């Protein structure tokens, strides 16, 4: 078994909301090993940043965690259930995961409040209640005064806030963000990170984000660093008391025996509901 560097085994009394277990990803075109035997658990209410150089595999990992792609080997568990057994990942993504991307890709012909409603087509909220919910989310991201503005009339920072509100549209279990401040100036980037912190603090939102910025990345509670498709460290941000103890995976490397994974606790959430909607 390969060494994945440091690997959290904390909070074993809780059920992880999202787990990667020995996940590898090989891109057949060019035989690129984008991820090499990565294992990690993410727990409810965690605020995790994944950092690493370009090509370190962090976006690939986020794609696997977000069910945008399937691993070549290994398994992803969402709320204790193996994702490989789910046929309709689209509906699962729509209902359980909120995505924020570097390019916000708001639809230019829709107002902010309408853009937030776009994921709701695949949600369960009745049509009549969607505008109110979208407006509430825009208030949450401090854009309550600009709900009817079209994206081009908003600053880039405001656009990313709309994208964050859009990611929250279907009340996801967790929020995944891929370089959410990559297109923003430092002031806007700062305020977007303030918003993530606020969502984490006030709503207990589980957030996993990728960033290049060391300054912003260290604002998360837990920092995972990657290199060459492997996790090289997994630690708490300095100054924060760890509730989960980092357990170095060196035993595995040195003895050839991995730490035995405890049995998965029973899910606290209902099994994946994949309703068929028109």
């Amino acid at each position, binding site marked *: 078994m390969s060494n994945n560097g440091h690997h959290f085994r904390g909070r074993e009394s809780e059920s992880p909301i999202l787990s990667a277990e020995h996940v590898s990803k090989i891109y057949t075109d060019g035989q690129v090993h984008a991820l090499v035997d990565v294992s990690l658990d993410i727990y409810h209410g965690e605020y995790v940043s994944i950092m690493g150089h370009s090509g370190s595999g962090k976006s690939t990992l986020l794609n696997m965690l*977000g069910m945008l*792609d399937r691993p070549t080997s290994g398994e992803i568990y969402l709320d204790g259930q193996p994702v490989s057994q789910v046929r309709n990942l689209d*509906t699962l993504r*729509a209902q359980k995961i909120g995505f924020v*991307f570097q*390019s916000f890709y708001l*639809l230019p*012909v829709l107002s902010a409040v309408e853009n937030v409603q776009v994921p709701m087509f695949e949600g369960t909220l009745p*049509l009549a209640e969607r505008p109110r919910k979208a407006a509430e989310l825009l208030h949450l991201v401090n854009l309550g005064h600009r709900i009817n503005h079209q994206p081009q009339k908003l600053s880039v920072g405001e656009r990313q806030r709309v994208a964050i509100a859009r990611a929250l549209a279907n009340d996801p279990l967790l929020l995944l963000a891929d370089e959410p401040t990559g297109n923003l100036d430092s002031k806007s980037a700062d305020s977007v990170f303030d918003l993530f912190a606020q969502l984490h603090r006030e709503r207990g939102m589980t957030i996993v984000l990728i960033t290049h910025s060391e300054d912003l990345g260290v604002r998360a509670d837990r920092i995972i660093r990657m290199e060459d498709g492997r996790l090289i460290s997994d630690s708490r941000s300095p100054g924060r008391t760890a509730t989960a103890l980092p357990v170095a995976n060196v035993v595995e490397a040195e003895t050839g025996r991995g730490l035995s994974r405890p049995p998965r606790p029973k899910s606290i959430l209902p099994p994946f509901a994949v309703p068929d909607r028109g």
Partner: protein
Amino acid sequence: MRFSTFVFRNVFRRPIRTTLTITGMAVAVTSVVTLVGLSDGVTRTMLQQYNQRGVALMVTRKEVLVATATMPEKVAHDIAALDGVVGTCPGLLSLNPIDEFGSDPMVVQGWQAGNYMFNEIKLVSGEILSEKNQGQRVVIVGKELARLKSVKVDDEITISDEKYKVAGIYESVADIENGMVIMLLDQAQKAFGKKGEITGCTVRLKDNSLENVQATAAIIETQIAEQNHLKSKLKARPPDQFVQSNSQIKMFKGFAWAVSLITLIVGGIGVLNTMFMSVFERTREIGILRAIGWRPSRVMRMILLESVALSIGAGIIGTLIGLGVITLAGFVPMLSGAAHAAINGQIVLKGFAIAIVVGVFGAAYPAYRGSRLLPTEALRHE
């Protein structure tokens, strides 16, 4: 926000391209509405003239060109003598230019003096033709033709180098007849060099049941044909069959559909191009939609509905222009009847249905491609 609102807004993201695509498709719809509408109008108005008068059979030569193939007038008299026949109208039809009306050929019909057909038309002004006009060079002119060419009673018109006096202006229940000139049969035979000949004969029966109509048709095609040395050369058909088998109508219909098909293909390629461009330009955006959980079927529906929205726009514009062109075609005397009959709900529905079918077909492949995009690949797209 409804899904339809979302789709509709997307369509107008690129207003110039949308307008151009709609224009291309509208041209196709216009050609369908105009040409197919007029060809349907010709059929309908021809049927009208028989159906309105309770014509059970139309007797012509088996050869296809009604205007040129003739038979002896005696055929009509023999048919009139058959049991159960309540009336016949032998006629000689000719397409002739009338000098005063320009070089376009006009439909000139010769009817027998005293025939019941003269009772079927309404006089607008002047007088109707009767036995007392035998041997006189007089005609009556259909209301529509009279209006278009400003013809009045007592005017003179020239047919085959002979002057004819306009005795009356009439109105028929059949649109096609309102664009014609009618003279007495003997005059028509003289004018067109077809003495004792007719081009066709309508037959009215006491019993219009299918069996009786078929039985009478069989007698005409065998017994009457043989009596007149026209064995296997006569055809007696109910009006709808007669009109459907009319070679000129078939040709017109074929031409109408051929031209329409070409414009539809061009319009369809326009839609295909637009929708492909639209999907290509929005690859990353589609990637985001897929990432946030849109199923492939919803992406497909979005693209197809965008195309249908374009089609509806093209349908509205194309149909309106088409109806305008048909109205203009009504100023051509030969087409006035067909044009009048062409404007109806059916052609509007046809125009819309075709626009939507072209829209859906044009967008089918781009929609399929769009829906097959994998979110990770679409997000990496530059």
